[in-house]
């Protein structure tokens, strides 16, 4: 079975304006819309396209999170994933623990490709793909904007500061995907109905030898310092005047 594993994280929706809790212990997530991390949606879309080209047989969506994460996995199944695995925990795991859980799943599932988002938009760590590749001792390609799978290999284009970089990697490999790789499909109503019948297995951290908790301690979470209110100018002459006065031009 030629299998692709895709990581799906439940995060505060892209459009929500995040607010810090008054006691500085975190951000407010109660009553806030949750969605699939947008980068993970792109990873899933890419997996589905690879399967639709006949280059894979099965797409497995995996997530770690509270019971409600089933909602995001059902969305992934409605998009076209064949089955899903939820490693259920209320703990917020550090990236290395996430990579260890994914490592355990990869050992059981033996995917030829693992596709993950390049970062989750909640904690912006951007570590899991690289760590999983290290634990598996396999190739990694971070921030992919183009993926071509051929026999036992992949040619990937990465977005780097200098432009674009192309790598050839042996499979199995772990890829993290960037925004411009593809545009994820919309889920249609019949697919949502179909997704309810697809298998969704629930596991726990102990199944992968990972414990709750993190060696990292949150000291505090604060809002960023606000910028002071600016001024409006009426025309170019006034703009140039202000810039000159500030010694900026």
């Amino acid at each position, binding site marked *: 079975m030629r299998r692709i594993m895709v990581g799906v994280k439940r995060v505060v929706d892209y459009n929500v304006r995040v607010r810090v809790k008054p006691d500085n212990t975190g951000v407010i997530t109660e009553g806030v819309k949750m969605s699939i991390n947008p980068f993970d949606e792109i990873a899933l879309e890419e997996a589905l396209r690879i399967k639709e080209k006949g280059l894979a047989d099965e797409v497995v969506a995996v997530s770690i999170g509270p019971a409600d994460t089933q909602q995001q996995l059902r969305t992934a199944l409605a998009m076209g994933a064949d089955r899903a695995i939820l490693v259920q925990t209320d703990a917020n795991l550090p990236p290395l623990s996430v990579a260890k859980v994914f490592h355990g799943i990869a050992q059981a599932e033996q995917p030829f490709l693992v596709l993950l988002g390049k970062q989750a938009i909640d904690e912006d760590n951007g570590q899991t793909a690289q760590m999983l590749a290290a634990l598996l001792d396999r190739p990694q390609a971070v921030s992919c904007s183009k993926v071509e799978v051929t026999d036992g290999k992949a040619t990937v284009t990465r977005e780097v500061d200098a432009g674009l970089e192309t790598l050839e990697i042996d499979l199995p490999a772990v890829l993290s995907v960037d925004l411009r790789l593809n545009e994820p499909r919309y889920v249609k109503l019949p697919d949502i109905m179909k997704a309810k019948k697809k298998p969704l297995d629930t596991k726990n951290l102990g199944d992968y030898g990972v414990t709750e908790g993190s060696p990292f301690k*949150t000291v505090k979470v604060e809002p960023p310092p606000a910028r002071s209110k600016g001024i409006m100018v009426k025309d170019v002459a006034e*703009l140039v005047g202000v810039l000159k006065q500030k010694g900026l031009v």
Partner: protein
Amino acid sequence: MSSKILVVAEHDGAKLNASTLKAVACAAKVPGASIDVAVLAADASAVAQQAAAVTGVAKVVVVENPANQEPLAAVYAPQVAKLATAGGYTHVFGPSTTFGKDVMPRVAALLGVSQVSDVMAVEGSHVFKRPVYAGNAILTVEVPADAPVVATVRVASFEAAPLGGSAPIEKTSVDVALPGHTRFVSRSGATTGRPDLQAASRVVSGGRALGSADNFKLIYALADKIGAAVGASRAAVDAGYVPNDLQVGQTGKIIAPELYFAIGISGAIQHMTGIKDARTIVAINKDAEAPIFESADIGLVGDLFQIVPELEKALG
């Protein structure tokens, strides 16, 4: 307690990247730090000299190997991890550029720790501030003192360490198996002759309102007039007006110029994340309600197609 910090140099084989100087500057904020710089290369001679001249560097550790011709994470990471362990380093820092974001988490996993991503301030040897939620919250995190600290440094948050030092250069070899499963094919990037976006003191960025790749020449003309780098919003990159390496924002480049022009950019929070540390933000937009005006220091409402050429002329 003293800290022994290894900074992983970013370079292109000939030139030390300015991001390395930012990472050294961050390392220098760690109390009691002794800072070494690791240069992995096929031929490190030029880059090692430049690293040795960075103030605050105690020693440059050089690992020359033909396999280090290109900075492949799968090849670099085991060598850096080995250097870190063998040298008894308490901290391993790299820049939070696409280079560091690729290599450093792999190093962290090999050392058995999670990474502290995008350090924006050092509060103690094991306490750091970093942005989360696209910079809408700032997390202060304390990491254990009994394990190595692996971190990437948010380059926009630190002034480059000055030059003027003369650290010794020490060649070494690392005894570790390097994989052949990852092969470099090519790299393409625009060499524009303009200042580097990430290091420039002035940046002119254009957004979707430019309407076409051709119209972006207005942005280039203004940038060239004031010696600025050119940037763009995600919308402008997605529309194909400019290449991806010009993108400024949460998932593009995080920059901190003295002067930033946001032209025809509405100011989505993901874009603002990329310019939070800009000293002065000038916004030009025809929509007076555009969110960019909430964060701009100087705002001008109007048609960019009239204003930008006029501004270019006025700055002549």
